[in-house]
């Protein structure tokens, strides 16, 4: 399997505190991966580094077939390279309709002048309809997204990421605050998405991770503690010690 993302030897400190410590991490082109770990393990910081929000102190990040370095690229540029990111808190444009949210996210030219003259064509509207179907918001396209329930906002954000057509999707705690039924639906969406692209899911909920049925990486104090199937890592004594045991 070809490597899409290769993070090696990355470290970052905040005021002397090592949030990420010599972290290495690989992702294939169409792979689903769960990242678990205790609070403060550096999961979100890891995503910050890959998406260009935080600059690492050392290490390299290689991307795609050509292995270009993502370090030094702006967040927007990295997003255009094909990295989509869902935040831990749902972040959608609350003042705008669900349809507008999805239309803005659709993969298109991103410059100001292109946006000024862009009109959604029939193909775009169809794509939005299909996406809204996928995320279960087809009936809510004309509502302001601020009115959606918490879970629906999470879905909308995932829908916006899918609209962006990324090659790698980084999803931070998608199931937080969701009901059981909503969680199941979220699992479906993510598993489906991972068939054609790489998806990294950070999650605390073990049930959720189990349903994802994928390779699991355990982070602890900024580096990888264990990696493998869920059963493999949950039987690892170190993991039980730092994470599951508590």
């Amino acid at each position, binding site marked *: 399997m070809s490597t899409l993302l290769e993070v090696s030897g990355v470290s970052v400190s905040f005021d002397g505190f090592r949030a990420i410590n010599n972290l290495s991490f690989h992702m294939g082109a169409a792979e689903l991966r769960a990242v678990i770990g205790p609070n403060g393990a550096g999961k979100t910081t890891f995503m910050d580094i890959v*998406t260009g*929000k935080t600059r690492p102190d050392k290490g390299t990040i290689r991307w795609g077939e050509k292995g270009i370095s993502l370090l030094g690229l*702006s*967040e*927007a*540029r990295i*997003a*255009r390279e094909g990295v*989509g*990111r869902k*935040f831990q808190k749902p*972040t*959608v*444009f*609350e*003042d*705008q309709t669900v*349809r*507008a949210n999805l*239309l*803005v*996210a659709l993969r298109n030219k*991103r*410059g*100001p*002048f292109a*946006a*000024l*003259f*862009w*009109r*959604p064509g029939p193909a775009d*509207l169809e794509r939005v309809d299909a996406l809204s179907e996928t995320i279960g918001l087809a009936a*809510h396209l*004309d*509502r*302001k997204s*601020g*009115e*959606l*329930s918490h879970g*629906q906002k999470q879905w909308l954000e995932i829908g*916006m990421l899918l609209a*962006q057509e990324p090659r790698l999707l980084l999803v931070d705690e998608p199931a937080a605050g969701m009901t059981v039924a909503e969680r199941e639906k979220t699992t479906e969406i993510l598993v489906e998405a991972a068939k054609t692209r790489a998806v990294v899911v950070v999650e605390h909920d073990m049930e959720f991770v189990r349903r994802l049925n994928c390779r699991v990486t355990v982070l602890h104090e900024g580096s990888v503690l264990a990696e493998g199937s869920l059963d493999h890592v949950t039987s690892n004594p170190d993991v039980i010690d730092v994470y599951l045991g508590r």
Partner: protein
Amino acid sequence: MTGSFLKRNPSVPVVLGLLLIGTLAITAMAASGGLSTSFVKTLGMTLCLALAALAMDLVWGYAGILSLGNIAFFALGGYMIGMWLMTARTEGIVAESLAGQAIPPTPQEIRDAVGGQIFGVVGSSDFPTIWAFSGSLPAQLALVVLVPSALALVFGWLAFRSRVTGVYLSILTQAMTLALALYLFQNDAGLRGNNGLSGLQNLPGLSGVPQSTVSLWFLWGSALALGLGYLLCAFVVSGKFGAILRGIRDNEARVRFLGYPVEGYKLAVFTLSAAITGIAGALYYPQAGIVNPAEMMPIASIYLAVWVAIGGRGRLYGAVIGAIAVSLISSFFTSGKLPDLDLGPLRLVWVDWWLVMLGFSFVLVTLLAPKGLGGLVDLWTQRRRPARHGADLGPDQGSFREEEAKA
């Protein structure tokens, strides 16, 4: 983003219609002698202020950048057109007075005499370099747009690139404005220091046309500019560009991680706002007659923001309503026509108390009606359109509020 232009901008025909009717009515009243020339000018100037408020709403209401620098663009627009007005008119006067001489004056002599006339007040008679194009109307008209845009572009590039946002950005824009004002106060800045440019109401070559007519020309010019400005702004904010601007205002990070170059968008809208504001200033100051650096003092920046806030941020007609309402009421209170109230120990001088009242109403609007005067329109449109799409009925979608509201 979807639907026809008019469907996306239902306010456009209303605003343009009212503007046309208003301008026609004023013209008719002025022609029948019902309105004084100075009042017609006040109305024309008010339309220019509305255009400036519109441009302010573009950056503040839509993109969330509270720019306190827009008033600088406004004054710069006035300066640029003022340079031509002063040069051309003084040339006319000088040429006339020199025409009687036995030896016809050389162009250089005329130029020197004009320089002496214009810059005599600051103890000089030479044209500073920045007046190089002042003899050409097309050049100065181009500069009306180019100078404010260029300033916005350079300043915006520096500020946005370093990701200064919120109140720090506002302070930075205010600092820019103040620095420019203080610079222009100096005589060697080349724009006649604190005298500014004056006599701008006199159009070169048209000394035979009475001011009552000129005032109507400018009224129509200002109305046309406001109408076109409104159309342009409506086009800008109702498409995807506008959706992204509002996205930047509400959640900059989300826009960035969708792959949009946020700085580019901010720069584009800031520069556009500066260009529109420059045009508004270029139409305003010939009606005011004088432009000087005092026009750019901090209070003026605040005024612009207050109009937009009172009118209602983030909706174009809000800015127009706010600017027109507040500046007309303001000119009523400060006209001195209102008799002062004697309240025993306290004497209510309206000219002074007006600012207090304005400040007070600003606070009230901000606290009690954040949608501003424009929010009143919602009351009306919602009564006409009962389909609330769930709005204001709470976010809980398990409870079928929409259905309940229909019943």
